[in-house]
C-alpha cells in the first residue's frame, strides 16, 4: 500500500555542486544523508577536489565547514568559487575531530573533514549515522595510509594527477574514479581540471 508522504522536490534532497561535478556525479549533486570519500595521495589534488565540491553549496546560501585542514588557502578557495562568508573552519581539532565534525553536522549542510589519523570504525559509523539522521553530508578526505574504514555512498578516488606549465604552473588534470553504492556503483573514470589557470574546477 502506498504511504502518504509530503512531496519533496528531488532538488532539496541534494546539496548542490557546481560544474563539472554536477554532470559527473550520480544525481547531479551530493545526496543528503550520504557520506562521500575523496581518496587521494597527499599533494596531488585531493584537497582542491574536496574544496571545489563546496563552492556551489556555499554560493547558494548553505553553510559549510572544513575540519582538520590546518592551513586552508583562502585565496584559492575563493577562486574555486567558495563563498567564504558561510564557511566555518576548525583547522586543528586534534583528537576531537570526530566530535567537532558531529557538532558541525547539526548546524551546517556539508562538512569536509580530513582526519588527522586513521578514523576508527566506531567514529566513522557514528558520523555516517549522524548525517543520515540530519540529512546533511560529510565528505572525508583520506590518504592511502589512512583510508576511510567503512564503505561510503560515494567515493572519488584520485588515480592520476598531471600539471601543465608555461612560464608558471597553469593547470592540473586529475583523474578520478567514481564509485560507491547505488547509482554511483556504476562508476566511471573522469578527468577534471582543478585548478585551471584561473584557479577554478572545470571539465577537461
Amino acid at each position, binding site marked *: 500500500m502506498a504511504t502518504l508522504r509530503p512531496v519533496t522536490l528531488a532538488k532539496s534532497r541534494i546539496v548542490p555542486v557546481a560544474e563539472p561535478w554536477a554532470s559527473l556525479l550520480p544525481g547531479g549533486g551530493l545526496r543528503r544523508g550520504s557520506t562521500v570519500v575523496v581518496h587521494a595521495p597527499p*599533494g596531488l589534488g585531493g*584537497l582542491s577536489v574536496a574544496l571545489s565540491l563546496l563552492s556551489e553549496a556555499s554560493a547558494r*546560501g548553505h553553510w559549510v565547514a572544513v575540519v582538520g585542514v590546518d592551513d586552508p588557502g583562502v*585565496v584559492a578557495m575563493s577562486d574555486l568559487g567558495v563563498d567564504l562568508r558561510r*564557511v566555518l573552519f576548525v583547522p586543528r581539532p586534534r583528537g576531537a575531530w570526530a566530535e567537532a565534525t558531529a557538532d558541525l553536522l547539526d548546524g551546517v549542510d556539508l562538512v569536509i573533514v580530513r582526519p588527522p589519523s586513521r578514523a576508527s570504525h566506531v567514529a566513522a559509523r557514528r558520523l555516517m549515522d549522524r548525517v543520515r539522521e540530519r540529512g546533511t553530508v560529510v565528505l572525508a578526505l583520506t590518504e592511502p595510509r589512512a583510508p576511510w574504514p567503512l564503505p561510503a555512498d560515494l567515493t572519488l578516488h584520485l588515480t592520476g594527477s598531471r600539471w601543465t606549465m608555461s*612560464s608558471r604552473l597553469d593547470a592540473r588534470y586529475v583523474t578520478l574514479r567514481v564509485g560507491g553504492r547505488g547509482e554511483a556503483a556504476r562508476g566511471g573514470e573522469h578527468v577534471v581540471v582543478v585548478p585551471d589557470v584561473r584557479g577554478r574546477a572545470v571539465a577537461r
Partner: protein
Amino acid sequence: MERLLALWVEPLSEERADGSTLRDLLRLLDALEVLCPFVEVIRLGLCVLPLRGPSRFFGGDEAVLAAVRQSVRDVLDLDVTLGVAEGLFCAELAARQGTVLLAGQTTAFRRAQPLGVLGHRELATTGRRLGLYTVGDFADLDAARVAERFSAAVRVLHRVARGELGELPGQRDPRLATRLRSVRGEAVPSDEQVSFFGQRSAGDDRAQAAAHRVRHRLGPEAVFVARLHGGRVPEDRASLAPWGSPSRELRDDAPWPGRLGGPSPVTSLQQPVAVELRDESGEPVRVGVRGSLSAVPASLVLVRGSRRGVIWHAGPWPLVERWWSTPRRRAHLQVLLDGGEAMLLSIEAGRWWLVGIYD
C-alpha cells in the same frame, strides 16, 4: 584569431583607494553587456568584446564603435580609446593607440611594434644587442634558436610574436572577476546578503549554534572564519580569524594583486616551514642581486632530511615591499616535485621557505 574590440580606460587602470575604480568598472560592464553579452574585463582599465556578433547586429564595425563610445559616455565621464585587432595581445595595443585594424591587418601591425611591448626587459635588452628592434624581427628568429638562447617564458613570447598565441601570459588579472563579483554583492544587496548582514536566517542561526558547541568543546581558538585583505601573494592576502572576533566583514579591496598569476596554492602555510633548495651537486640555490637563480634547482630538502627531487621550476618572481619603513625583499618560486606535487617557495634574506602546497 578572433577580431576583438578593446576598450582602454586609462583612468580606471590604477585602483583608487576609495574603491570607486571597481564600481566604475562594474557600471561600464553593465552598460556594455547591453550591447554584447560576451564583454570581458581583462584587467583594470581594459575590457574586450568579440566584434563579429555585434557588428552583424548593429550593421558594421563603425556602428558598434559608435554605440560603445556612446554607452561609455553615458555611464562614465572618462576618456576611453578603442581599438580593434585579432587576439587579445594586439587588441590591447590597438586600443592604447586608438587604432582600428581591418581583418588581415593585424600581422603587419604586430610585426611593426617595438620589441618592448612584449613586456620582457631581458628580451628587449638582449634583442637590441642582437639587432632585433621590432616584434617582427624577433618573430623571424628560428624557434630552435630562441629555445637554446632564452628561457621558457621568452619562448612563449616568441609564439605571441609569431601570432601563434593571441595573448601574453599575465595579460589578464585572474582575480578581477571574483573581486568584481564581491563588489557587486556589496553594492547591490541580494536576498542572501540581507540575511547575512541584516535579519539572520534560520540557517545562519543553526550554523552559529554549531560553532558555539565546537568552541565550547575545543576552546576559544578552535573555530575560525576567513578574511581576505590587501597583499600581493597568496600567503599575505588571506588569513583566518577566530570566529566571533569583531569585524567579520569580508572584503577584498587589495590593490592590484601583483605578479604572481595563475592558480593559488590550496594550502597556504600561515607559518612557513624552512626548507633547503639545492642544485645538482648539492649546493644551495640562491637568488642573485639581479633576481636570477644561482643554479637550476634539483632537490628540495623538507623537514628532517626528507629529500625530494625537483623536476621543474618557475620564477623567481621578486617582490619588494615596504614593511613599515624597511623594504622587505622576497622572491617566489614554484617547484614541481618528482612525485607530482607542486609547491610554492619563498626566499627572504637568503633562506628558503615552503609557503604553499598545491594540494
